[in-house]
């Protein structure tokens, strides 16, 4: 699917279609230059305006999080708070009504466990499907692909029924295990391994390694970028996921950061500055992951969309 697609047969060749442009013209650079420059400048202005617009929510997060409550609710809009109250962060973690530290711990455990588990299970499955010949491999492949048709969000009621009858409600197990089997991740790994250079594996086989040891000693060490790409996408998804933790994490003890934030947004008993400092703290780990691993995330997004 990665090969460029041929031109749509219904679209005539460019240039042959539009009347009046058939004759190759040599343009006078003196006539065109100013127009091109104006266009380029306009585009840049538009981009800068859009970029500022896109950054406003992050600005509000910091502004409100570090303001005094009176500054936020004042009728007079202030772009910068009169004083930056870093003590808001301490106040958040001292507030006995907001189990922020515990929620952060839960979210970290869940995100790390989900990422590692998904990578292990999906990469093994992807490799098996791509490389081990088996008569019914196609059947298994469609068995996995079929679940892509039914998104997890629609199956949350039945899955909740199952998890509750296992007694896993409000446990980390219940939050992690049902989300580990990502058909999307297995599909990305399969596509990747189909294009993995076979010579490397053949060399390992000549050295007497079986499938298992070839996989761990040759394939995995040479596939770090794809693991990083899928891993960061899964990590972000697990950290930000909301519906499943809301359904399963019913006890306060099992709240993730997202559920804790949501509870306080809808309860309207918490101070605005505290809510915003909590939100800022909750996206900080992700921004760090994001800034350092952005090229893997971009690679992961490209894979996820195009091979879909």
């Amino acid at each position: 699917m990665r090969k460029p697609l041929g031109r749509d047969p219904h679209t005539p060749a460019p240039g042959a279609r539009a009347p009046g442009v058939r004759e190759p013209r040599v343009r006078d650079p003196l006539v065109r230059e100013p127009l091109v420059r104006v266009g380029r400048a306009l585009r840049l202005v538009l981009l800068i305006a859009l970029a500022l617009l896109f950054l406003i929510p992050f600005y509000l997060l910091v502004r409100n999080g570090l303001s005094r409550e009176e500054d936020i609710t004042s009728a007079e809009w202030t772009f910068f708070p009169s004083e930056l109250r870093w003590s808001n962060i301490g106040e958040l973690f001292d507030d006995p009504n907001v189990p922020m530290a515990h929620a952060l711990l839960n979210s970290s455990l869940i995100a790390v466990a989900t990422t590692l588990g998904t990578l292990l299970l999906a990469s093994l499955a992807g490799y098996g499907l791509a490389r081990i010949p088996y008569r019914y491999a196609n059947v298994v492949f469609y068995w996995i692909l079929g679940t892509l048709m039914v998104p997890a969000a629609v199956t949350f009621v039945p899955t909740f029924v199952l998890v509750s009858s296992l007694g896993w409600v409000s446990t980390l197990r219940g939050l992690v295990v049902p989300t580990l089997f990502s058909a999307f991740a297995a599909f990305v790994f399969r596509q990747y391994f189909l294009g993995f250079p076979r010579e490397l594996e053949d060399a390992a086989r000549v050295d007497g390694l079986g499938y298992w040891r070839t996989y761990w000693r040759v394939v995995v060490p040479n596939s770090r970028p794809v693991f990083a790409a899928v891993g960061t996408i899964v990590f972000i998804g697990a950290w930000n996921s909301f519906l499943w933790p809301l359904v399963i994490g019913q006890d306060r003890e099992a709240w993730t950061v997202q559920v804790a934030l949501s509870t306080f947004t809808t309860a309207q008993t918490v101070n605005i500055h505290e809510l915003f400092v909590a939100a800022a703290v909750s996206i900080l780990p992700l921004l760090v992951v994001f800034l350092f691993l952005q090229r893997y995330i971009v690679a992961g997004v490209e894979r996820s969309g195009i091979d879909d």
Partner: protein
Amino acid sequence: MPQDTLLDQADEAGGPRRRDAPPSGPAAPARRRLLGPQNRTLWFWVFVGPFALGLGLFTYVPLGWSVYLSFFDAHNTVSPTDFVGLDNYAAMLRDDAFTDSLVTFLVFTAFIVPATFLLSLSLALMVNRLRWAQAFFRSVFFLPVACSYVVAALIWKMSIFNGVRFGLANTVLGWFGADQIAWLSTTDPPWYWLVIVTVRLWLQAGFYMVLFLAGLQRIPRHLYEAAAVDGARPGWQVFRYITFPQLRATSIAVTLLLVINAFQAFDEFYNLLSDSRGYPPYARPPLVYLYYTALGQGQNLGLGSAGAVILALIIAVVTVAQARWFGLGRKED
């Protein structure tokens, strides 16, 4: 699959015999049938088995169970005895709230799909042609992807579209002398749609921009050179006859993803609109409806399961229909 046959031949012809290959003897044919040549069947299941099993347990079993439950009166129980036939389905389809939720989804899709498509494509086109600071602008537009819907909804609800006077949108309106608007609680005109759609637009546009950027970079340069030689004017003509047709595969993928994601919308609706008094009667997309039916006060799992089955069917039909319509599904690779 051509790959399989190739590998088969390679293994049969030149591949080394594995040390743990089945021993020859009277028992060999049976074992060979079970484990496959060179234990390949065994190894296939070692690699794929755990995943396929888990998928069965946590996707297919719940789905099957849910179909079973949907034929029973199951209040607060997962092992019901009161068989009601198709009553749950009939009740679901007669329920105005359920059909309203489907209408909500359609309205939401009509807003969000074209808006996200156009914004992300425009961003990609502009960023792609930048000579400098390309990485900077790409990062800025991509950054919201790291944000959760919960945090975004919190910022939108409590700060930007706060109905009181210190909300940013109302402050800006105030500069122009306009009246304040209660963004989320006004149903006439339905301003809440502006709030709901902009959250998702902000959060997703960068994601799809990256997809379009990848698509743009795969367009062969020589097509543009040929167009320039033929005298196509840079700008609209080149976009109309070269760029957009070349982005066909990406555009289809983006549209499919946008519709599926719109169908699954829950987080921003829930966090923007529900408060300590519960969820308002308007703007309930399917998943919010399902959440309150199945897990709310009554815990009517039979009815909720029937709803889940109906939604699963709808989404499967929509996905297949879209794929057919766009001419996917035929073997391309």
